[in-house]
């Protein structure tokens, strides 16, 4: 039904391929450890002045602006900590919402509110989830704003409702599901300690500390793409690289996998939106 943003994907491909073939960095005396240390310096140097702030500002405007067929703002939206409250909401998501009788993550909850409060059609609300230079995504701006309002707070996903438990179990199953032409699953890259793909660290998402560190740093401004990417995007793109078909935005499985990863990160302090390569 919804057309996937062709442009967005091109941007992704270019972002990843930007340096392909151009950059076989040469060094004979550089040990792996020294390389990792320098990369760490690189990351720190980017920490000051995160362009995600530009998204946060745009998202706050979008949150407060009257939009849609009903000309309403999102300020009356309950995203997990009560109507009209934004602070701390991201720390308790995903969670079960009575009004929809569903477990929702931030993105699916925003879609719900855009439909219910602002009168957007369901398709319109989720038609441009991931922005590109040609077409900025309101969704990513809203996500940046909401998550920034939980910065410094501890992840605290309840997960006690039967549907939350069900989501967790489904997400866990998805995490370990190996398939596709490469036999990959999430677990291939994120099931062991201290793994690296090229120079990128791969957090072991089955363990508390690395799971906390990874989850709490998303969403993030990706310098390779020049966009703030949401957690839904993170999963979408992981599955693309896993050679899987396209993960449907805000699908039940996507929320379930988020539930699994978010709950495993409980106790971790949110630092998102962060900045990443």
């Amino acid at each position: 039904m919804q057309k996937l943003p062709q442009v967005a994907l091109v941007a992704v491909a270019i972002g990843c391929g930007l340096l392909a073939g151009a950059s076989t960095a040469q060094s004979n005396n550089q040990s792996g450890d020294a390389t990792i240390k320098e990369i760490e310096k690189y990351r720190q140097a980017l920490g000051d002045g995160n362009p995600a702030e530009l998204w946060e500002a745009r998202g706050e405007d979008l949150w407060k602006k009257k939009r849609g067929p009903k000309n309403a703002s999102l300020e009356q939206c309950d995203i997990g900590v009560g109507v009209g409250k934004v602070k701390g909401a991201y720390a308790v998501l995903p969670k079960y919402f009575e009004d929809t009788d569903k477990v929702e993550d931030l993105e699916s909850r925003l879609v719900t509110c855009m439909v219910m409060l602002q009168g957007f059609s369901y398709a319109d609300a989720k038609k441009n989830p991931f922005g590109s230079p040609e077409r900025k995504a309101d969704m990513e701006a809203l996500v940046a704003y909401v998550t920034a309002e939980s910065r410094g707070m501890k992840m605290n996903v309840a997960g006690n409702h039967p549907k939350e438990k069900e989501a967790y179990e489904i997400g866990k199953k998805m995490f370990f599901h190996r398939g596709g032409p490469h036999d990959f699953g999430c677990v291939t890259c994120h099931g062991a300690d201290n793994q690296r793909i090229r120079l990128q660290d791969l957090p072991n998402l089955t363990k508390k500390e690395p799971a906390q560190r990874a989850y709490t740093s998303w969403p993030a401004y990706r310098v390779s793409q020049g966009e703030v990417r949401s957690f839904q995007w993170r999963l979408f793109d992981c599955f693309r690289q896993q050679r899987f078909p396209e993960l449907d935005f805000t699908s039940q499985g996507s929320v379930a996998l988020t539930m699994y990863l978010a709950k495993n990160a409980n106790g971790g302090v949110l630092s998102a939106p962060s900045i990443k390569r």
Partner: protein
Amino acid sequence: MADPMKIRANMMGDKVVVKVLMAHEMETGQRKDSAGKTIPAWFIQNVTATHNGKTVLSAQWGPAVSKNPFLEFRFSGGKAGEKVIVTWTDNKGDKRTDEATIA
């Protein structure tokens, strides 16, 4: 229209430290879109910062400045409560001016 800049100006000793984030694609003119067509260059060319009517920094940029540019500089002679005004102009003639109060 371009999105607002994020400007921070803070006193550090007797210096004002200014940090600016600008929302801009900084397209190099070398990338191709999905149809294989070259995406035309589009980037900020001039940046000017003023304080009390005096220019405290002016810059010329090429397309090799990173997307959503970041800029930091420091000047003396500013006080808390005064304003720093930053303006950029791109190669399409688009322009954006924002200001921050020194804290």
